[in-house]
């Protein structure tokens, strides 16, 4: 094939298709979120524009585009404009690297260090937030930006460490190979249950979502780092946040839930099976992938509707004092089990799954709803 077609035109076409679909999903998620939150809180949510309020997805960007673009007095103009663009760039780039379905059709740029590159790109999102917060010349923005930076940076460590266990089992940084490994053995969710839990908590904190939405704590900080931003610049921050959520859900699906495959031990819809089925197989793979990703997006919204906000010291404690030791312990245990498995000839995945299930079961047993024990001296108060 013509190298230009192979390296330039096809990836571009693939990327643009993926990009349009992704932006559509991001815009639609906004409507889904407001609508679902409305139902949870026994109200209707946006239902005026179009059938069931669906045209809200189009009405919002148009309105953002027509609103006044305010640059506050004494703001650092260049930094103020860079603020919303910077977090948008990595979220665009990451979609090149994410395989949405069986390769080679559904991945724009297949890179052999995809995991590392995705992590590097997503972690640059913090620059825009702190720059925007600082440039706005507003106390609340500055505080929100700093809190956001501290929080994203703190949870970056457990985020990165939790992936190490997955890499140890699958032995590759290529997202496609990680998915194939899971189809041939078992979803990483089971042997790496602890890592999956840490990853999920860390990704919620990374994207500043409830219960970790301290940078936007409206009761304390008005709106956080985007207090002074209006019109399209504000929309860019929102777009970056939702895109980051979607990227994280894609990563969760690829690393822990077998991506586009639906197989265990090599039986079921593996990558080869889907590739043999041709175009319908590819579509089926994408459908499976999207269903898995959307499940996690809905969990995000469910969290927002359910959980109260953390306090800042609690947030830091959880990140530094709980998540990091847990992630390190997970790496050591995985290392020991893999080594013993090789020398004593057993499947490390099975042992890890049982151990993970036991730990989670024990924790849930301890957290079960119980009648409150009231000390005898306080009975009168009750």
């Amino acid at each position, binding site marked *: 094939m013509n190298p230009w077609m192979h*390296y330039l035109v096809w990836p571009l076409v693939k*990327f643009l298709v993926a990009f349009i679909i992704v932006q559509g999903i991001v815009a639609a998620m906004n409507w889904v979120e407001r609508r679902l939150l409305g139902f949870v809180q026994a109200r209707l949510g946006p239902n005026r524009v179009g059938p069931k309020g669906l045209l809200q997805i189009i009405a919002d960007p148009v309105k953002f585009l027509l*609103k006044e*673009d305010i640059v506050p007095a004494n703001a650092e103009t260049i930094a103020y404009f860079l603020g919303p663009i910077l977090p948008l760039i990595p979220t*665009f780039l990451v979609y*090149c690297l994410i395989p949405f379905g069986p390769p080679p059709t559904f991945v724009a740029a297949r890179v052999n260090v995809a995991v590392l590159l995705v992590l590097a790109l997503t972690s640059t999102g913090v620059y825009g937030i702190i720059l925007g917060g600082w440039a706005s010349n507003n106390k609340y923005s500055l505080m929100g930006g700093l809190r956001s930076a*501290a929080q994203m940076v703190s949870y970056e460590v457990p985020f990165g460490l939790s992936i190490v266990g997955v890499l140890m089992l699958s032995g590759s940084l290529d997202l496609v190979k990680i998915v194939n490994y899971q189809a041939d053995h078992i979803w990483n969710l089971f042997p790496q249950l602890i890592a999956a839990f840490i990853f999920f908590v860390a990704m919620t904190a990374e994207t500043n979502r409830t219960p970790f939405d301290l940078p936007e704590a409206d009761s304390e900080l008005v709106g956080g780092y985007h207090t002074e931003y209006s019109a399209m*610049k504000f929309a860019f921050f929102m777009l970056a946040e939702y895109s980051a959520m979607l990227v994280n859900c894609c990563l969760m699906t690829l690393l822990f839930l077998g991506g586009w495959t639906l197989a265990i031990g090599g039986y079921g819809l593996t990558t080869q099976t889907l590739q043999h089925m041709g175009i319908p197989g590819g579509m089926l793979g994408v459908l499976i992938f999207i269903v898995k990703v959307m499940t996690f997006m809905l969990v995000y919204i469910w969290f927002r509707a359910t959980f109260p906000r953390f306090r800042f010291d609690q947030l830091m404690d959880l990140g530094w004092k709980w998540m990091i030791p847990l992630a390190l312990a997970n790496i050591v245990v995985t290392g020991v089990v*893999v080594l013993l498995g090789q020398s004593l000839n057993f499947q490390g995945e099975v042992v890890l799954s049982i151990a993970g299930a036991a730990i989670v079961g024990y924790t849930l047993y301890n957290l079960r709803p119980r009648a409150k024990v009231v000390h005898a001296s306080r009975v009168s108060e009750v």
Partner: protein
Amino acid sequence: MTQSYFPILIMLILAVVIGATILGLNWVLGRHQRNPSKLSPYESGVPPLDENRKRINVRFYQIAMLFILFDIEAAFLYPWAVIYRDAAQGPSGMFLFGEMAVFIGLLAVGYVYVWKKKAFDWH
């Protein structure tokens, strides 16, 4: 292998162009009616009192430094993790495990030290 990064470079340019274009379009299409109180820093309607870029708590700086240390250590674990499973089958498996144990051991010593110095406490 380098060619597979090519779309990413193109996308970088495209992202900047799209971002700048939409912001520019907003600047053109949006209306401009400014007045001093609209441009002043938003403080819930109260006139701003103090200077806005105050000195900030040193703990934020501390967290940033700790992050760099721990995140680099996490990144160092990646190449090791990738080759571990295949190497564990061979004779060097025990050696590799020992290497990791020493590395994480050192990390843990530093971690305990930082904890005892109360660098993780936020008050």
